[in-house]
């Protein structure tokens, strides 16, 4: 060392001890070094002194020195060479434990220099007579591949690994399989070629990639794997099962054979083995057509899945997430098992929430009464988040099972009577959905709902109640009064409430024009003048213009019949579901998201991205799938009732007046769209982009149209008995954005996709929590 080390301090003391003549002292010092390393102290300065202690008969001491080396070899690459001799000697030790230890450690040192000395001992160890050494050496190949892939190719280690799949010892087979799978995956992440230059910006054709040729599972391999499966340790079984999942069966018979051989693993005590077996079955069952086998496979799958529910909570949660996924693919597997998903009072919240979702999935006419009883019970617990989800589940059941809707409504009314604020609010939100699904069925409860008006302080609950009032305005005597209370505080309300107030009052006006002229003028004025949300303003302008130009169109737009809602069977798109099912028990299956969405920056992030851009086709299909996911999410969200307030495909009045000022509004709208999630915002965005992109054509509107419009307004004002006349008498709204109304709503989903396709992939999973 160039610099003389200081002669005091802990490291100096340690150095003295490491060089002590007494064995105990030296052993003790090594332990202290490891302890210091664990708490984060830098011990790299002691490298030569520790390495001196490597040559020892004491196995425990040797292990500790090796542990030190693993941690510090890369900080002292020049000095590692000091250790090589001992390592090479140890790999030939008569004691198999020492041989295995030496090869295991040597291959993770991450020092270029030592790798060159590793090749020959590793080849020897791969063929060692002792299975323990062989199974250790097998994994070493994966370690070496991680550091220097070309070395593995040069020495033919990968071929040796493939030979080891035929080894007589199941543990060796399992590790060889694990190593090959690791190498296989690492090679996919490698830059195309040459493998030694990571980050190379050259773009050779994609075919130059090592691709999957490193680990092809052929039929002889399959036979070996199936034999080893029943014999090896639980962890080995998992490795083999995930390899079986990758195998593509040549014909139906082979698929049947695989399923039959894997089914016994359902009885394994290790949850990961059970889920691994489920994965293999779910993949290979696709090719099975024999009725009796299909039946027996699905029948055998249910009990082990249920048993997983008695595991420790973390495992239970993983199992529940996977069951949720499996039920989307095969809703019938747990048809009679709803009771086991009942929440225990003391279960952790993350488990309870999952159980709720699954119970709703399993709900049917037969068990709905029990389920509703449970849900009602949960709604009286203390965890607010869980209680809300339980109330929400009542609504989902109502929408799922027509026959039970009435019972659900009565449960919800009971809950509203508890007058617990968050329960009432959630119940109101849920009832709104029930009204959407079963219009005009439960009008009797409206007075009870309205009596809770002052209880509501959350925007979503308020907006829901306002929507209900607007929807049934003709049946509620004091609708104008009720809505008036919201109008009084219009400025202070949040935007969703403002939007709903606006729409509800317009509905009221269209239904009972005589009594509500005043209120509608007030709300339009408030929304256009005092509101700083462009969405609210724009909607107000649209209504205003509609009302003043063509009341019939206004009616068909605002009071249009909404498409019915239903509870989606799946929460992920079919393509994604298929992909997730083939990854049962993995993180992706727990998150219900493709792995690429949360491990985007994998081991070789930049290269991975580079590769992806090369595989344009893959990207397109993935992108499509992601879009479907996004669309699916939108569809799932029953609560976005705003979506149906969008204009129906009508040829309502279009106007070219006021377009000059359009530019201002649309740029604001665009700015707001970036942040908002309201589907209507996207619609607005659509309008504004339309007017932005084609501004040159707009100002000169075809004279025939504008003539038609004037004629139209003329005719309405001529019929002076019509209450609308007074409206048209008002000064026209200062700006208009009527152009886009002609766009059919079919545009909307596309727009959403455009919006989200960019963000979808980078969507952070943190949102989950």
């Amino acid at each position, binding site marked *: 060392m160039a610099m003389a080390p200081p002669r005091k301090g802990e490291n100096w003391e340690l150095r003295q001890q490491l060089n002590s003549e007494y064995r105990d002292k030296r052993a003790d010092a090594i332990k202290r070094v490891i302890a210091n390393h664990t708490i984060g102290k830098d011990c790299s300065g002691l490298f030569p002194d520790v390495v001196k202690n490597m040559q020892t008969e004491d196995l425990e001491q040797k292990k500790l020195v090796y542990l030190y080396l693993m941690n510090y070899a890369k900080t002292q690459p020049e000095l590692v060479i000091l250790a090589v001799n001992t390592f090479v000697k140890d790999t030939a030790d008569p004691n198999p434990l020492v041989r295995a230890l030496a090869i295991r450690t040597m291959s993770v040192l991450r020092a270029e220099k030592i790798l060159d000395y590793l090749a020959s001992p590793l080849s020897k160890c791969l063929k060692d007579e002792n299975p323990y050494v062989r199974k250790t050496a097998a*994994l070493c190949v994966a370690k070496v591949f991680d550091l220097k892939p070309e070395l593995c190719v040069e020495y033919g280690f990968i071929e040796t690994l493939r030979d080891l799949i035929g080894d007589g010892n199941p543990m060796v087979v399992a590790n060889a399989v694990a190593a090959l799978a690791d190498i296989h995956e690492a090679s996919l992440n490698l830059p195309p070629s040459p493998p030694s230059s990571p980050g190379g910006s050259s773009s050779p054709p994609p075919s130059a990639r090592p691709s999957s040729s490193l680990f092809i599972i052929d039929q002889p391999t399959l036979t070996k794997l199936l034999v080893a499966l029943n014999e090896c340790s639980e962890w080995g079984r998992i490795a083999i099962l995930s390899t079986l999942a990758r195998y593509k069966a040549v014909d139906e018979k082979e698929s049947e054979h695989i399923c039959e051989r894997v089914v*016994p693993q359902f009885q394994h005590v290790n949850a990961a083995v059970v889920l691994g077996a489920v994965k293999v079955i779910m993949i290979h069952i696709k090719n099975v057509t024999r009725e009796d086998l299909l039946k027996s496979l699905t029948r055998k799958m249910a009990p082990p899945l249920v048993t997983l529910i008695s595991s420790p909570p973390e495992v239970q949660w993983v199992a529940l997430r996977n069951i949720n996924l499996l039920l989307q693919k095969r809703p019938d597997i747990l048809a009679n098992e709803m009771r086991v998903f009942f929440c225990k009072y003391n279960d952790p919240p993350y488990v309870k929430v999952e159980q709720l979702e699954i119970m709703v999935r399993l709900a049917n006419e037969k068990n709905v009464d029990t389920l509703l009883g449970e849900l009602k019970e949960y709604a009286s617990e203390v965890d607010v988040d869980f209680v809300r989800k339980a109330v929400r589940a009542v609504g989902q059941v109502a929408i799922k099972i027509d026959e039970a809707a009435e019972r659900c409504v009565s449960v919800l009314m009971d809950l509203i009577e508890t007058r617990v604020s968050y329960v009432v609010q959630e119940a109101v939100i849920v009832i709104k959905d029930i009204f959407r699904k079963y219009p005009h069925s439960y009008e009797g409860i409206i007075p009870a709902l309205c009596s809770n008006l002052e209880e509501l302080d959350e925007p979503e609950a308020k907006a829901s109640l306002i929507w209900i009032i607007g929807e049934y305005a003709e049946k509620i005597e004091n609708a104008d009064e009720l809505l008036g209370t919201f109008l009084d505080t219009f400025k202070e309300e949040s935007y969703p409430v403002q939007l709903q107030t606006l729409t509800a009052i317009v509905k009221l006006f269209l239904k009972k024009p005589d009594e509500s002229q005043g209120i509608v003028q007030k709300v339009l004025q408030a929304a256009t003048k005092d509101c700083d949300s462009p969405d609210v303003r724009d909607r107000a302008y649209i209504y205003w213009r509609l009302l003043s130009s063509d009341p019939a169109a206004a009616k068909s737009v605002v009071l249009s019949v909404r498409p019915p809602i239903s509870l989606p069977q799946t929460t992920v798109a079919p393509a994604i579901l298929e992909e997730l099912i083939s990854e049962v028990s993995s993180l992706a299956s727990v998150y219900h998201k493709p792995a690429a969405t949360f491990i985007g920056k994998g*081991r070789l992030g930049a290269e991975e991205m580079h590769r992806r851009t090369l595989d344009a086709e893959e990207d397109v299909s993935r992108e499509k799938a992601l879009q479907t996911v996004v669309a699916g999410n939108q569809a799932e969200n029953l609560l976005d009732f705003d979506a149906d307030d969008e204009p129906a495909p009508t040829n309502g009045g279009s106007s070219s007046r006021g377009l000059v000022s359009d530019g201002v509004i649309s740029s604001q709208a665009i700015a707001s769209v970036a942040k908002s999630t309201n589907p209507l915002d996207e619609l607005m965005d659509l309008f504004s982009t339309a007017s932005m992109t084609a501004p040159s054509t707009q100002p000169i509107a075809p004279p025939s149209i504008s003539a038609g419009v004037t004629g139209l307004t003329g005719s309405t004002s001529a019929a002076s008995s019509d209450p609308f006349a007074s409206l048209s008498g008002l000064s026209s709204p200062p700006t208009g954005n009527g152009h886009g109304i002609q766009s059919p709503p079919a545009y909307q989903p596309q727009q959403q996709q455009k919006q989200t396709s960019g963000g979808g992939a980078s969507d952070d999973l943190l949102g989950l929590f």
Partner: protein
Amino acid sequence: MDQCMDCELTDLTHQAFFIFNQKGEVLISRLFRADLKRSISDVFRIQVISNPDVRSPIITLGSTSFFHVRVNNVYIVGVTKCNASAALVFEFLYRFVTIGRSYFGKLDEESVKNNFVLIYELLDEILDFGYPQNSEIDTLKMYITTESIKSEMAVREDSSKITIQATGATSWRRSDVKYRKNEAFVDVIETVNLLMSKEGAVLRADVDGQILMRAYLSGTPECKFGLNDKLVLAKRGDQTSKSDSAVELDDCQFHQCVRLGKFDSDRSISFIPPDGEFELMRYRSTSNINLPFRLQTHVTEPSRSRVEYTIHLRASFDSKLSANNVVLRIPTPLNTTGVQAKVGVGKAKYVPGENVIIWKIPKIQGAQECTLTAEADLASTTHRQAWSRPPIQVDFSVVMFTASGLLVRFLKVFEKSGYQSVKWVRYLSKANGSYQIRF
């Protein structure tokens, strides 16, 4: 699409393993892959340990996923950057906990700190490059020991045997086991899960059973084990004699020594047992559960400042049997100021910290009945929310009773030396937080 699927391969590895204490200090750290840095532990400390809102056992930050299990005052954490098998990671973390308990008696901050060298040694053995290896405690104890190292020669002689066993087809058993007296003890332990509604309807009643075995048998014994499993008995045509007492098992799970293929084909349980204690099987049963305790509750709230309880507990099992350590936890409203309780048997005490009345009965004979009457005084509150009434929980253990009705019919031991062996069977039904009655 095929290639796309391939790159989504499920990876089996942990890429790092940590143990933290409650303050977020690293007690043990082991990194297996180059792309993870030690500083990743800081991320976990900040995002999980110091964050009270964490509601999930898996957290993914950026592209790094943290799996954690909390045991006593330590966090056991697995870290990965790939699409790892979540079930495997948690199974492994729990296995580590079991191994730790077996080595140190308990797993907590103190024992981890005192045994860190041993833990590193263990990790080295059970997790190679992030892949779980042999985790059989019996085998591990052969070559990773807490005592000072044996003489070098002895180790050398042993290690060949050790390594063969650690990788062998019966990695759980040594071949040279010898006992003067060959004995096997079987414990059938059933955890009863019950959820009963206010109205007394059984919402859920099932049994999670566990069959523990302590085998002190010489050589390589081949064991056959038989239960009064309905399917087996039906197959043999025994209906006439015993079909009434046969139980229906919904599902069974076996120790890795049991030949699963054989069970799948004819439901027979055959195995070569590990030496000493192990869990032979787990099972689940949901039909015809004999509930050992019935509860009648009458709880009223006559005024806003008082709750009155009358609770009858009846032991519904055979009068020759008895239950031990019966504990009822009866919830009280949060604003309870004091409780006067009267009981005929045992002791009842109000525990303000947990808002429960704890009624402890050391022993109840079968068919016996006990009653508790209590009055809880409430402080007046302006809070209007109704009391949520969490369920009453009954904990107990009843010896020589199985709620599922399961019986061991036989345990046959075959060994080539042909020795006689003695077998013992015990039954126990218990509940620990899983027996809940709403009121």
